[in-house]
């Protein structure tokens, strides 16, 4: 049985950017990219590609399409996933969608997924590591009218069903759903594989299909954002830090314990 898995991937500012270099343009309500630090594919999304590759490793006959919505620069994220081993890449690139919120993003992705049909599984990260919203995956399931299993640490396809281990606060549950379905993956699934040089070179030659809203039969003027960002700012921490002094570690430990006792914390 041949399977088609669609992985949704977003490109984001590198979340490993040191907090000291994190800047916000409060007027534009946007994050200012840190100089010299390239954007990366959102890690939960590459974990989604890893999940798809593991299914292909197990089953063999699996096609993996990487789908993204963003400007031309998002091609890098798609290429990274192609180098990981995905087969095809599609970029929805339309300036009219540049300010899309999660609702409009999901509308465009759902239209693209329908255009890519037939498909069996849609995989997204549990949330993008920029806005940390975690809305697009479950919204896709609703727009496509298919079941959804969120925040999973393992995904398998067997007997025409998806079987996934959904992370709970104190353990996990195994959930199955008929195909097609949407699954969102979490970091507990494991590290995404890193592309080898040969794969990177092969991926560089692969074509990425580019679609506009019109190619998807969408009229951007009819797609209305559901939320507005009113403000974006770096929160101020009001903590006064005392660096515990001491000539030896033991002195520092003594002084720390003294502070904790004075504050009646121990």
């Amino acid at each position, binding site marked *: 049985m041949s399977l088609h898995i669609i992985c949704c991937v977003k490109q984001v500012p590198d979340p490993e950017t040191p907090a000291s270099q994190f800047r916000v343009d409060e007027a534009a309500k946007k994050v200012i990219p840190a100089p010299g630090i390239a954007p990366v594919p959102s890690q939960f999304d590459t974990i989604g590609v890893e999940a798809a590759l593991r299914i292909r490793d197990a089953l063999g006959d699996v096609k993996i399409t990487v789908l993204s919505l963003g400007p031309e620069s998002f091609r890098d994220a798609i290429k990274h996933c192609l180098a990981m081993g995905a087969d095809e890449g599609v970029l929805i690139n339309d300036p009219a969608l540049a300010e899309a919120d999660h609702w409009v993003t999901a509308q465009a992705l759902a239209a693209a997924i329908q255009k890519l049909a037939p498909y069996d599984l849609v995989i997204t990260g549990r949330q993008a590591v920029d806005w940390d919203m975690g809305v697009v995956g479950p919204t896709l399931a609703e727009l496509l009218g298919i079941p959804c299993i969120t925040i999973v640490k393992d995904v398998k396809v067997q007997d025409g069903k998806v079987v996934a281990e959904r992370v709970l606060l104190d353990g996990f549950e195994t959930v199955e759903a008929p195909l097609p379905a949407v699954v969102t993956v979490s970091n507990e699934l494991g590290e995404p594989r890193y592309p080898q040089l040969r794969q990177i070179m092969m991926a560089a030659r692969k074509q990425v299909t580019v679609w506009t809203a019109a190619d998807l039969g969408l009229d951007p003027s009819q797609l209305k954002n559901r939320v507005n*960002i009113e403000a974006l700012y770096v929160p101020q921490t009001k903590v006064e830090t005392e660096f515990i002094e001491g000539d030896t570690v033991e002195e520092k430990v003594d002084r720390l314990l003294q502070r904790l006792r004075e504050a009646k914390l121990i």
Partner: protein
Amino acid sequence: MANDILVFGELTEEGRLAPITFELLGAARRLSQPLGGRVLCAVLGAGLDGQSREAIAQGADVVLLADDPLLQEYQGDALVQVLERLVREKAPALILLGQTMVGRELGPRLAARLGTAVTMDAIDVAVQDGRIVVTRPCYGGNAHAKYSFNTSPAVVTLRAKSQEPIERDESRQGEVERVQASIDAGAVRTRVLGRVKQKAEGVRLEDARIVVAGGRGLGGPEGFQMLEELAELLGGAVGASRAACDLGWYPVSAQVGLTGKVVTPDLYIAVGISGASQHMAGISQVKNIVAINKDPEANIFKASRWAVVADWKEVVPLLIKKVREMKEAEARR
């Protein structure tokens, strides 16, 4: 009614209202004044004796109670159906859910079915000039964003422990409206095949007054044994950063942070934790943080009340020794 607030009453496995529900009811109570509406609480489950009373004591004006064996365990497909119907019937202005494993799925799905707006993981909801405005951390907690909504109702999930419950009042009056679950079993497409519990022994991390947490700086799983010893002496629990969990050094159930647990102990001792914003998101409410780190530039120090710049391998054994001596001296008195 158009100004009502609907709280999704999340339940524990034992079918009791979960603490997050009381926090949501507290937030709803405060918002009901500027909005000028009532607080409705949807309690959807099976075997819910006494829970309506509890929801009212914690701030609900109206409890929408559906008691149905089909709601015995969490099933997104079942709950989203019932909730969608209740929202269409009651037409609230605002729907509050917890940012929990349940709310993370139900919130977006409910909003999508209603075609309305949703924001996740809020730490504040306010009414400004008659509009609902939500504040939520983003970029792993490096930034905060304020959102307004273009559609009504607004669906909002609130971060655990970001809201205060009201003082429980058994004399509060409220109504209970029994609603039919009327679940279309054919539309429940997912099936839970099994559940595995990975409960830690001792004090629960979420309830602990003292948390001793380790990160990548521990250099391996062995360091956590020492943290366990210290935590036990202090009557606390052990937490871990995502980096340490991803490396397999400590169980994921102890993960503190954006994708793990939010904790609010009186004292948080961070050992070998650099303070990545995703970790800080789990301790943003903690007032007393002690950080032990070799790197004087470590980000964790910015949020710490006390900073110890030293090698944890020297600090922690001394802490264990001295705390033990202290406890033994106390026991003798």
